[in-house]
């Protein structure tokens, strides 16, 4: 009985750790999509953030600098999306795809140019490397700081989106930009801010992967998490709390996989679940998932 409880706590603990990067990225997606900008570049922004965090940690040996660098690069990539999607009114899906290809390629290129070794960066100071030097207590606290921050941000986003004037404006811009503009709301500005903020959050998720979970960047380390986050946005019906729940649910499957390594259920089939469920949700079999009315539609004043 006791050991069953222990296993359950371990699985739950791992689930929360595994879902943290997803929570950041999905929250970023929720914010920008509620303002009407689809961010399919979450994967690239996570990769950019993960690489930037390692780079900053390598040169400064400072973890706060690493986390900030991750957020900054995520935001910078999102600014490109914002400029093309909002100012130039380019197709948001295509720009997002371009950013994915560009960010992953640029990280691989810089890895070779700066460190002279393709594929993997050197090990840098990270949340996990502190564990070995100053004891597990401090490391755990720091590590969990990122986890708690994710939870805090979700609650903040929920309150701001549904309980404040700014949030109302943001959602208005995503639903009926023309009506919002008539009411005196600056549609362009809100879309810019929401998109960049989304990128900052995705970058934080990336930083969590590289200097939080491990202590290096390697090619392909984001491994589709940006797209799982996108799935979580849809599965969570474009709300902060909903997508948070979806991330936890998806994280639970990653951790079950670890717990059930010897079980008869193949890991790949468990991994498929988030993707399959998203399709089911989109088709409307378990309560229809509807995006904001003007999600993905360029605004032409």
């Amino acid at each position, binding site marked *: 009985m006791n050991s069953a409880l222990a296993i359950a706590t371990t699985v739950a603990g791992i689930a929360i750790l595994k879902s943290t990067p997803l929570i950041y990225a999905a929250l970023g997606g929720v914010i920008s999509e509620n303002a009407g900008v689809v961010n*399919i570049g979450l994967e690239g922004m996570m990769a950019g953030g993960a690489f930037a965090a390692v780079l900053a940690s390598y040169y400064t040996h400072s973890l706060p600098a690493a986390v900030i660098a991750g957020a900054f690069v995520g935001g910078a990539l999102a600014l490109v999306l914002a400029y093309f999607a909002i100012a130039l009114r380019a197709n948001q899906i295509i720009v997002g795809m371009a950013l994915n290809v560009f960010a992953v390629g640029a990280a691989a290129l810089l890895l070779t140019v700066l460190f002279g070794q393709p594929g993997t960066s050197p090990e840098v100071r990270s949340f996990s490397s502190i564990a070995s030097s100053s004891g597990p207590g401090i490391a755990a606290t720091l590590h969990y700081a990122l986890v708690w921050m994710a939870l805090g941000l979700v609650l903040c986003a929920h309150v701001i989106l549904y309980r404040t004037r700014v949030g109302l404006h943001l959602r208005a811009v995503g639903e009926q930009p023309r009506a919002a503009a008539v009411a005196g709301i600056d549609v362009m500005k809100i879309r810019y801010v929401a998109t960049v903020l989304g990128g900052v959050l995705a970058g934080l998720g990336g930083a969590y992967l590289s200097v939080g979970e491990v202590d290096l960047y390697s090619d392909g380390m984001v491994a589709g998490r940006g797209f799982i986050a996108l799935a979580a946005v849809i599965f969570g019906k474009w709300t902060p709390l909903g997508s948070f729940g979806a991330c936890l649910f998806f994280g639970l499957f990653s951790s079950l996989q670890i717990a059930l390594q010897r079980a008869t259920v193949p890991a790949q089939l468990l991994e498929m679940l988030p993707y399959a469920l998203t399709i089911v949700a989109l088709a409307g079999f378990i309560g229809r998932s509807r995006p904001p009315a003007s999600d993905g539609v360029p605004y032409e004043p």
Partner: protein
Amino acid sequence: MNRLASSFAAAALALAAGALAMLAFHADPIAAYGALLQGALGSVQGTAETFVQTTPLLLTGLGVAVAFRAGLFNIGAEGQLVVGALCSAVFGAWVHLPTLAEIPLCFAVGAAAGGLWAAIAGWLRARFGASEIITTIMLNYIAFLGANYLVSGPLRGSNAAPETAPISPSAVLHPLVSGTRLTAAFPLALIAAAALAWWLRRTVAGYELRAVGQSERAARYAGVNVGPAIVRAMALSGALAGLAGSTEVLGLLHRFNAQLSPGYGFTSIAVALLANSSPLGVIVSAFFFGLLQNGALFMQAYAGVPKDLVSVVEGLVILFSAAGMLRSARGRARVAVGPEGGVGTAPT
């Protein structure tokens, strides 16, 4: 003409940005691009290999382009390629027929499998209004994970490696030029491009597909049965990607494993965009990307510039193509991409 100019501008700008990046880390762009060209086109072997790299890009690029023409955004070419390749490989290993029967059958199985996989997304879009953009992304991962599971378990060959058993000798496409890997798959892909161009322009089904791409509502009033047209367009798109998977299996690997494609299906989106979704244009843009991918290895070996530079250039080509499209606001590409912008569910 205008669209053609904007495609060339997008490619030129991206290459120029790549050159600037090289200058930033003290590499010589002229030497690098020179090595790339020399490697990709400077010898019979090099040129043949460029065509080898072009083949899957051409077929998947045609697939993405035909979906664009129907107003659909198929991001799932990579998954459709994997499904087509896997089914083709399993069928090719299982059946032993004379070459003249076996090879066409293997292609047919690959195309059918890829087509069915894509048709799922088409059906979900036509029946429930679920965005094909999202469903094809999700179907990609389901295909990768499913294929991974199958080759590491139920469909694993006698080999220790996670791959299927080799296809029977009668299913193998042999090289056209000895000492190279160039097979009949390349001319077949060219024929597919010509056939698609003819089909889109000269048949009723092709006209209906384009009509749906221009405006679903107008097509409906003109008497087109829009739902089935969408499913057909996705199926055709996926069939071309599945065919690309078959050519890799029959011509190069002779079996299926998870490393079969380095992302041809994703690059194909850039291929179709640069070609403005014109089938004949896809030939040129697939060749351009095939040349970049093949030449990248020589650029790395002889000019010391990492081959990943090509991915950066590729990303920029997509970005600049996206920006170039809007200058002709009523241009085809603009109409062609996606339902009226909606992601998640399409407006009805």
